[in-house]
């Protein structure tokens, strides 16, 4: 029988994969995608828990999260574009003028 626990474990795994992705990838776009993955893992958690709790609130939350994720992508891409205009093919690691 499926319990919320399975969903929780799955979403935790997905979340971790996303997190590792952010840490290991240098391409900003891929990093954004990983963040999206993490957000979706959270969505999965919400749904799983809402299901377990038999409560609609969690499921509603997911919609808010999806909107936020969309907005985030817009902002992120805008910044990437602004940077790409000034230097070509920048990876996350190239941005290290500011340090120390």
């Amino acid at each position, binding site marked *: 029988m499926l319990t*919320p626990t399975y969903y*929780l474990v799955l979403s935790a795994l997905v*979340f971790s994969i*996303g*997190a590792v992705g*952010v840490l290991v990838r240098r391409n*900003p776009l891929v*990093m*954004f995608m990983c*963040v999206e993955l*993490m*957000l979706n*893992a*959270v969505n999965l*958690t*919400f749904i799983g*828990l*809402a299901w*377990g*709790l*038999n*409560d*609609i*609130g*969690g499921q509603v*939350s997911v919609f*808010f*999260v999806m909107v*936020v994720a969309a*907005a*985030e992508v817009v*902002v*992120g891409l*805008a*910044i*990437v574009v*602004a*940077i790409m205009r*000034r*230097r070509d093919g920048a990876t*996350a690691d190239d*941005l*290290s*003028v*500011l*340090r*120390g």
Partner: protein
Amino acid sequence: MILAQAQTIAAPSVDVSILLPMLFMAVGGLLILTMTSIKKDIPAWFITSWAVGSCGGAIISSIVLWNQLGNDGASSTVAGAVGFDGFSVFLTVVIASAVAMASLLAHPYLEREGLEGVELHVLLLLSGTGGIVMAFSNDLIVFFLGLETLSMAVYVLAAMHRRRIQSQEAGMKYFVLGAFSSTFLLYGIALIYGATGSTNLIEIQGFLANNLLVEDGLLLGGIALLIVGLAFKVGAAPFHSWTPDVYDGAPTPVVAYMASGVKAAGFAALLRILSSTFSSVVDDWVPAIEVIAALTLIIGSLSAIVQTNVKRMLAYSSISHAGFIMLGVLAASDRGTSAALFYLFTYAFLVSGTMAALTILGGKGDNDFSFESMQGLGRRKPILAFALMIFLFAQAGIPFTSGFVAKFGVIAAAVDSENYWVAIVAVFAAVVGAFLYLKVLVSMFLQEPQDNARDVEIPGSVGVVLATAVVVTLLFGIFPGLLDGFATDALVELTTGQ
């Protein structure tokens, strides 16, 4: 159960008067954006005045609300999602003031840097709206929305200076890390939801008060992840690493807002969620916050002393300030909350004042923040130097400035709650911090000006910020009772009903 709810679902009642401050900000921002897209040649002074006026509206409505609060007591609206209490109103004033001051600073800045346009002001207003939403939020999801509104505007603000690669790098870093940490925060919300069955703070508090959790793994994990997200927002160690880079790279007026407004909003959430809502599990989260506070204080102070760039140094010092405010959080008491509020209020003004001075001193290109450039300022620009001295004294916690009372208050709160060792770390961090500010003072007053020292002018709007900040800093430093009364009354009250 779901069905039952669905059947009886009703539009929640909305008390618009309570939402007035955030409406002033949001609508003000959107209106001016619309206006400029219709009529291209709206003068810059009008835009700035509009932005400041919107903030003024928010502040005035807050004052009205405060009096209303005195008569009617705290309440909540929008189905309990928005909490109306002294706490939220007080922070609204802080955030709105921060936005207003940042706007005033931005006015000459944009002109000098050739970045004319309405965007910065609009984004500031929207970000401020998000902050106010956070302050008012009585629901984790509402809080999350406020946070994202606030953050996304700030990501863009940080990258606002088109001709400075540092600015874009700052925006990029802030965005990546901000989005990353938001996921943790959200995950935490989800877990708390799972543990308590609600995202509403009133219900969560009620749930925790009425139930003894046998299995509290979900709740504690949720709190842990929530702390990650919030600690990131306020720039607490070890989640602080974005702060120096972003403060360094972002346009100086924006830094003023980040250090005052964003920080205030972040602490609003910490105080409301941790100190109030989760006060029943203090034994679990207080040690964690203690360690975070101590680390923040230590890392902030230590890194700051080896900086050669004043702006970057102040970024680190703002980390250490976050550590101090944390003391108010971890006290998890009314005294702690009001001390933290006092701190946030006075800090908003003095950091804006400091950044106002840096806005002027940075020169065209927003680049020149070396200690050498400050040399002999006391002789070259005595008034500016005097104002900056007051702010630095306040940051150092010298008596008869607001900064001292603020530090005293949070440390008192920590001692009151018997968190002695963090308090000890804090006072030593204050000593190390004092050294930082002395370093700047030495440059300004005790060293001769360099030959090629730039001549600087104080634009009117910056002058207004400087003067306001000096007055606030000294007034509440010498007569702290004036503000203290408000801060003591501005407590979190998680109440249902109108």
